[in-house]
């Protein structure tokens, strides 16, 4: 979805998918490092979270902060549905991500076993 949305927005050339899995990599998405740091602090519930909230509200805006929190909340749900039901990758996702899953280290995840 990240690659597809970047393609649609015309920013595919600057996209670095490693930014989604490695906090030390720049994703190429505007404010991407700040947003992924916020996501990580929210998921891991670290002390960095209040400061990151303030930065997003100040640098992007309060609605942007609320929408970012919504995405975190949504995917805290979706990953548990996927892994709690043992679903495999959809065929179209499998085809579209064939070239990057190894590079991103996704096959090391236990839930990779759900996709033959």
């Amino acid at each position, binding site marked *: *979805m*990240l690659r597809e*949305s*970047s393609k*649609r*927005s015309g*920013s595919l050339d600057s996209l670095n998918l490693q*930014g*989604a*899995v490695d906090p030390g990599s720049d*994703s190429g*998405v*505007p*404010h991407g490092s700040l*947003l992924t740091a*916020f*996501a*990580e602090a*929210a*998921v891991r*519930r670290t002390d960095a*979270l*209040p400061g990151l909230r303030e930065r997003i509200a100040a640098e992007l*805006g*309060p*609605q*942007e*902060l*609320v*929408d*970012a*929190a*919504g*995405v*975190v*909340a*949504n*995917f*805290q*749900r*979706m*990953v*548990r*549905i*996927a*892994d*709690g*039901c*043992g*679903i495999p*990758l959809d065929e179209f996702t499998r085809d579209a991500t064939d070239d990057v899953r190894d590079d991103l280290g*996704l*096959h*090391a*995840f*236990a*839930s990779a*076993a*759900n*996709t033959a």
Partner: protein
Amino acid sequence: MPFAYAATDLPIRPKTVDAHRQSWEIIANPGRWWTGAERVEIARVARAARDFDAPTTELLPEAAVYAIQKLVVDNANLSREWYEETVASEGMTEDRYVELVAVVVHALSIDEFHRALGLELEPLPESASGEPTRERPAQADQRYSWPPIVPKDGLNPGDEMLYGPLDWGANVISALSLIPENVRWLHDLSEGHYLSFAEMRQPDPLRAISRPQIELIAARVSALNECFY
């Protein structure tokens, strides 16, 4: 009225508030396999699990409590063997498991929204009386996931379009459909927190952050949870 958000100046979207209130009402009422009191208890145990707390409960079977805790804090290490053992345990079935997962993940998602924004958690709802309907859809079918799913013609009236042109939706959309109401619930909270199923196919602008920013956050959360899907 729950979810008034009176103590914050943050611009919480009306659709988010609606989805939260609707979720609390769904949790409070009897489902197909659990009473309202049991469903609220499931949400309570899930909330505590996020704090690595394990409250005592006499309302839920032991296997249900363990399943809730695994789903909340050890979701990266679930397996088919664990699932099969869980649904074969005393007080559990495939149907009860699917309903439990739905309550856990929706309650957790709303709590996570609050935690991410530094807001107080909403008190859990008072449960409504009544008995579960104990109705398994006749169309339930074993396909690709651990629990059976319900194809399009077995969903509740009006929800068939949520599966799109296929007879079942993307795997994650149909994953909890053994309880067909879950498909609508999944959609409505998606719309409140992320995007509606229709918006997922539409171009920016959709929210205050761009679609690539939305999907980057989604990918990071998935990676942190070690979710292959």
